[in-house]
């Protein structure tokens, strides 16, 4: 293992976060705060409880997930797209490191950033709403697992993207809709029966459901199933990444 190389990539990527602290941390925190003000305080106060949970508290796990998913994807995608775009990728490709080490460096940095962000958003939420976390260790596990999985997904997007537009398309056109329709703001048991079935094809449903279980002990889907689905998605992303490196897809001619 070339630990110096992993460390170099990891620290280099995190340094970018500190340099762009405003965009990296402040932007998602502000936008999440707006959700809490609008949906939590303003609208939420006149909503009924869901599964015996106040509406404002009910949406906390979903909002954390929303930020976690979009930030993981865009951070990791940007992290690998940028050197491809500027040409500095030549150095990474010519270095004595395996594709596994490259992935650990880039995805590790993106996931670290997302986890920190997720925790900051939870603290921010606590300023607006009172909530308890029933299973804190499971919560942390799901937080890290989701951050890693979707950073990996973002890494794939970053390698696949051959223009700035494509970099934006996946988070904007796929992930945000899936998160909104994945039960961030409602329980899927509130949907008509047909849509309850269809919605199970949305992977984000499992993430939000499991995350909400960590907070309040109630879930739309069995937690074991959620964990299984998350791991399945993680495995799928890993397989794609290694295929990309093996074939040199959009990295090497």
């Amino acid at each position, binding site marked *: 293992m070339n630990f110096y190389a992993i460390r*170099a990539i990891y620290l280099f990527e995190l340094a970018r976060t500190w340099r762009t602290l405003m965009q990296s941390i402040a932007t998602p925190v502000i936008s999440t705060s707006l959700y809490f003000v609008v949906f939590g305080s303003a609208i939420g106060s006149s909503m009924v409880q869901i599964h015996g949970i106040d509406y404002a508290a009910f949406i906390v796990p979903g909002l954390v997930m929303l930020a976690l998913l979009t930030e993981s994807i865009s951070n990791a995608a940007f992290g690998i797209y940028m*050197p491809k775009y500027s040409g500095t990728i*030549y150095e990474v490709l*010519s270095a004595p490191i395996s594709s596994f080490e490259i992935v650990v460096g880039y995805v590790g940095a993106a996931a670290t950033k997302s986890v920190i962000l997720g925790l900051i958003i939870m603290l921010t939420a606590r300023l607006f709403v009172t909530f308890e976390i029933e299973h804190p260790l499971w919560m942390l596990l799901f937080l890290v697992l989701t951050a890693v999985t979707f950073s990996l997904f973002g890494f794939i997007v970053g390698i696949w993207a051959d223009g700035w537009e494509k970099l934006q398309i996946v988070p904007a056109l796929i992930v945000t809709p899936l998160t909104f329709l994945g039960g961030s703001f409602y329980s899927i048991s509130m949907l008509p029966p047909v849509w309850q079935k269809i919605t199970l094809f949305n992977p984000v449903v499992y993430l939000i459901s499991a995350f909400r279980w960590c907070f309040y002990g109630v879930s739309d889907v069995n937690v074991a199933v959620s964990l299984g689905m998350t791991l399945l998605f993680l495995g799928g992303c890993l397989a794609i990444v290694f295929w990309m490196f093996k074939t040199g897809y959009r990295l090497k*001619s």
Partner: protein
Amino acid sequence: MQPAISIQQLTKSYASGHHALKGIDLDIQKGEIFALLGPNGAGKTTLISIVCGIVNPGGGKVSVDGHDILDDYRLARAKIGLVPQELFNDAFESVWATVKFSRGLFGKGPNPAYLEKLLRDLSLWEKREARIFELSGGMKRRVMIAKALSHEPDILFLDEPTAGVDVELRRDMWEMVRGLRERGVTIILTTHYIEEAEEMADRIGVISKGEIILVEDKAVLMDKLGKKQLRLILQRPLQSIPPALDAYALELSADGNELVYTFDAQRQHTGIAELLRHLGEHGIDFKDLQSSQSSLEDIFVNLVRGRA
């Protein structure tokens, strides 16, 4: 001795169908400065990129100090530093951060003292905190060199190192290359400037349309260059050269109308005056004469054109 780089039957075709390399065989010896000379699009950068791991090889074998570039890529790549032709930079990073990153990436532990010396040698030390986009083009090129040398490579690739570089940087660069050679670093540079190859290289290879068409010691090449030819157009065709003129090793054209005398232009005494006097004594008159010298450029152009 094991060559620094051994390339056997290397081929490469791009997805576009372009055959960039057509069976390259080349050995680079340890400690030499090798200049790869060729016109744009000859395959120089493709060749370098394959050795460095940036482009996948088509067919053939490449090993670096005995390590296969695919099977033992870690050992092979750790030995190599690459300065690419283009100025690829992390614009928002500081010089110090980017050089430190490069060293780590190549698996070397931190060594601030070495990096400080490196930056001082390249006149970058004062600029170490500057962000790269603030630097001039020449300074950016120095940063690229610093990155390539940050992990103390045994082999250094310089792809078109002096393209768009001012005189001062050029001189500094050659000084640095000589210094590296003294420390035993093998240097491979590509160029399409013949003077550059002449000035720096121990050996010169010419590549054209994906094939190596000549590899020669520079001294041998220069020797060929030193030769001049005097061509005499005769008044009357000559049947044979008189034996008395054997010492001049003259060549007679097939139709007997031209005599060619080859001599060493570097020497004080070229023998031209005596030859002309001797010819007069033997009653050989000429109506015209011309002298020519083949430059490396001529050899190069002929070689490349011959393959066209």
